[in-house]
């Protein structure tokens, strides 16, 4: 087919006054690791739902790239099954799918084979020619982490990811977690990536940041005049951040043995949530302004002194127990896990942000597998009233707690005391709740929908910058170093907790020592 000349577009006057103005430019998304689970369960369903909501440009193509041999039709069939099962907008509409699937393609190849990337380039150009696409490309690295550097190197060698230039098509790269396994590997990966790509081309994805409540945290803090004045050490007693899962290692024992909860959940998801909860107001809601403020929080995290390590860090491993009425094995009995494993499936941390705003306010973080329920939330505990006018001896008044639920049932609740009707001065806790589903009559979009759309639009606000990743690893790596030293000295402390409980007693004691207790979310 003849190549179509694509002139520089004039502005579209018909967009004036329309509600949905964030429509990306036509582009092709190349998914590396397209035969994997993430593409089938999350990425293609998200792209289909965006198409269903008319948020993608009219001309948009997806080219899957993987080691597995299959043709375009087989890839389309597999992705259709994924959308049937996982798309937010179901059932999949037959006519829409026909149009959507027409622009799905597949290319086999190895991640470190230069010839495969030359074939990929030729195929991309052919698709762009046929569909009249201007050459904008997003490369999604949904591969094992070991393939990140080879893929990016190969992209560079094939001249598929040129640096940004005015008037030229864009090339962006989305990198899945984990970004490194410690500070050294994260730094090394950043160096390798920067040899090929400019930082503004890199979109390190943390799907927690695509969740509506995480974004709403910024709106909640910075668009409501009543909360931000309380958001500091004058009024906040402490903060609890919980990331609990009911699942075990789900067949990924080999991976989890290397990662543990700290790498799998804390370094990325919980640190991002912490930084959003604790950051100063950015000067603008723009990518670098927001990320600058998050970085300051991560840099202000006080390193835990060796002398306080036992009091501020608890790790544990789940033992056999019960989840949802079903007996489940202990971690060491899971497939792919060493029977003498010292990998943590639970971690609880007490940390401080050394800033003017948060001086003296402890942040308690915990994350665990095989907990009684799947929940991620931030709970802000406010200080008690200065004079307990209504409390009776033995009947303390419960503190005000603002809980921000990230998943499931995204929403915000504020607990406060209210007088019970009647002659006696009895006080009962009541809750004001806001839930996305019931307040807006709609469920929020999937995190991947938001993040893929943002990347296509060139908005990096909800992605992690290289220096943020390194700052987070810098703090976490100290914990790993202490654990390594413990192991080397033969002093490993790794309590067990029964599956289906909220973690070991040691974690409860960590808070009890401060006169506090974990919230039951």
């Amino acid at each position, binding site marked *: 087919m003849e190549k179509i000349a694509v002139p520089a577009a*004039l502005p*579209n006057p*018909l967009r004036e*006054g329309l509600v949905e103005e964030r*429509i990306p430019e036509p582009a092709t998304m190349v998914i590396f690791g397209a035969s994997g689970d993430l593409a089938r369960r999350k990425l293609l369903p998200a792209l289909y739902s965006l198409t*269903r909501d008319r948020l993608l440009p009219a001309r948009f193509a997806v080219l899957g790239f993987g080691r597995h041999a299959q043709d375009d039709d087989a890839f389309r069939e597999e992705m259709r099954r994924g959308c049937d099962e996982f798309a937010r907008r179901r059932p999949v509409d037959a*006519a829409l799918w026909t149009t959507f699937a027409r622009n799905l393609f597949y290319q086999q190849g190895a991640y470190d084979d230069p010839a495969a990337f030359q074939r990929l380039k030729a195929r991309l150009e052919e698709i762009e020619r046929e569909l009249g696409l201007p050459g904008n490309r997003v490369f999604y690295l949904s591969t094992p982490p070991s393939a990140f550097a080879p893929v990016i190197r190969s992209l560079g060698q094939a001249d598929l990811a040129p640096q940004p230039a005015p008037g030229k098509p864009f090339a962006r790269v989305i990198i899945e977690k984990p970004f490194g396994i410690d500070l050294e590997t994260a730094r090394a990966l950043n160096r390798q990536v920067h040899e090929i790509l400019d930082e503004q081309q890199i979109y390190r994805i943390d799907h927690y940041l695509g969740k509506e409540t995480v974004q709403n945290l910024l709106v909640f803090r910075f668009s409501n005049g009543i909360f931000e004045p309380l958001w500091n050490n004058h009024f906040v007693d402490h903060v609890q951040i919980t990331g609990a899962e009911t699942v075990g290692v789900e067949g990924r024992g080999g991976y989890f043995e290397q990662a543990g909860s700290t790498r799998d959940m804390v370094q990325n998801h919980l640190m991002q949530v912490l930084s959003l909860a604790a950051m100063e107001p950015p000067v603008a809601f723009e990518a670098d302004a927001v990320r600058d403020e998050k970085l300051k929080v991560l840099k202000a995290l006080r390193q835990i002194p060796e002398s306080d390590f036992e009091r501020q860090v608890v790790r544990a491993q789940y033992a056999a127990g019960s989840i949802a009425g079903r007996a489940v094995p202990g971690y060491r009995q899971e497939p792919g896990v060493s029977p003498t494993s010292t990998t943590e499936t639970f971690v609880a941390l007490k940390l401080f942000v050394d800033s003017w705003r948060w001086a003296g306010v402890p942040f308690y973080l915990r994350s665990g597998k095989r907990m009684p329920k799947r929940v991620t939330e931030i709970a802000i505990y406010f200080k008690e009233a200065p004079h307990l006018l209504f409390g009776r001896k033995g009947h303390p008044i419960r503190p005000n707690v603002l809980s921000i639920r990230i998943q499931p049932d995204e929403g915000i609740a504020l607990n406060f005391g209210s007088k019970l009707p009647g002659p006696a001065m009895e006080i009962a806790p009541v809750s004001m709740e806001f839930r996305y589903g*019931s307040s*807006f*009559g709609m469920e929020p979009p999937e995190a991947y929908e938001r993040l893929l759309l943002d990347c296509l639009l060139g908005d990096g606000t909800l992605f992690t910058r290289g220096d943020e990743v390194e700052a987070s690893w810098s703090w976490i790596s100290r914990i790993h170093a202490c654990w390594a030293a413990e192991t080397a000295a033969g002093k490993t402390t790794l309590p067990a907790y029964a599956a289906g409980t909220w973690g070991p007693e040691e974690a409860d004691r960590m808070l009890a020592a401060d006169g506090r207790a974990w919230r039951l979310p």
Partner: protein
Amino acid sequence: MSEADARANFERFARGEPIAVDVREIERELGALWQQASHDGGTGAVARAALWNLVIPTHGREALARTKALVDAIAPAAPIRAITLCLDDGAGGDLSATIESNVVSQPGGGRVVYSEEITLVGPVGAEAHFGAMVRALQVPGVRTATLWMDAAMPSTLLVRELLPVTRRLIVDTASCAAPLHLQDLERLAARTQPRPVADLGWLRLGSFRLLFAGLFDAPVGGAPLRGATRLTVRHRPGGDVSALLIVAWLGHLLHWRPLRASQTSDGGLRFDFERADGGSVETLLVPTGGPCDASAVLAIELENGRDAYVVTRDAIDEAHVQLPIAPPRAVKLDAYTDADLCVAALGPRGRDPLFAQCLQVAGRLWSLEARAGGSRR
């Protein structure tokens, strides 16, 4: 009232059934029933919520039934105190009143939002009392919107009694019997300024407009629009008003100057425009059959002498788009209920300055048709 009667009333109220009350005692009765709900709900104090007072004038029992169904559908998405004003030829001499609850439950079954609905029914002539009743029944400090959809209601009620207390007027141009009403509406919109007029018809056209606008996103861009020579809007017979709004929308945004109007042999309308660069644009409104929602618009086709850019509705919620540089593509259209649109009209989308501007242009276009001796009036 005996304790048994009170109990029975409460149970009916909790089920959302109407309770007849004395017109002078509406607030007191509501207060008493909500208080009882707090005691009997089993989940602690109930919270009554209202983001808007929504006044809905309506004529006749059938229209009243439709209005009540609409209020029931709005309540889960937007807590309102609904005040329905009904003129009924068969009603007795005095105003009668009923009250109802609307309870929205959360997924687990717990009740989270409670709102209420007041219905006043009276014979023709009772509209003289409606203004004072509305002023008395407004929840203090809460904005009032008026949903004016029933052309059988006397316009004096709206203009004299309701507009002074209305912060947002909601209409539905798709139910205008003829484009003539557009000019009435335009005058009304001018009168309500700076308070916005929201149009369900305009909102209903939103997804079609969005789809058509999307054809001119990069890399196509706005260039084909600059050289437009012909615009065709296909619509269901009787859907002239929606089609006229589409023409007005494009004419306004593309700075086309209307020159003349004429009837076409197929029962449609033709408007000639002058483009900003002096070129001419022929615009046709063509009545035709096909699947459609209440917006009545079936297709928008724009030609520039070389290429065509087309959005065609294939079903109520399906369309396809045609561009010169890509194969036809199926897309989904949002299918909105009137309740969805009312909720949208109460939100930020109900403050669309573009609607007021397009309404003005549509009114001008219709006056051109009149000067051409139009037969549609």
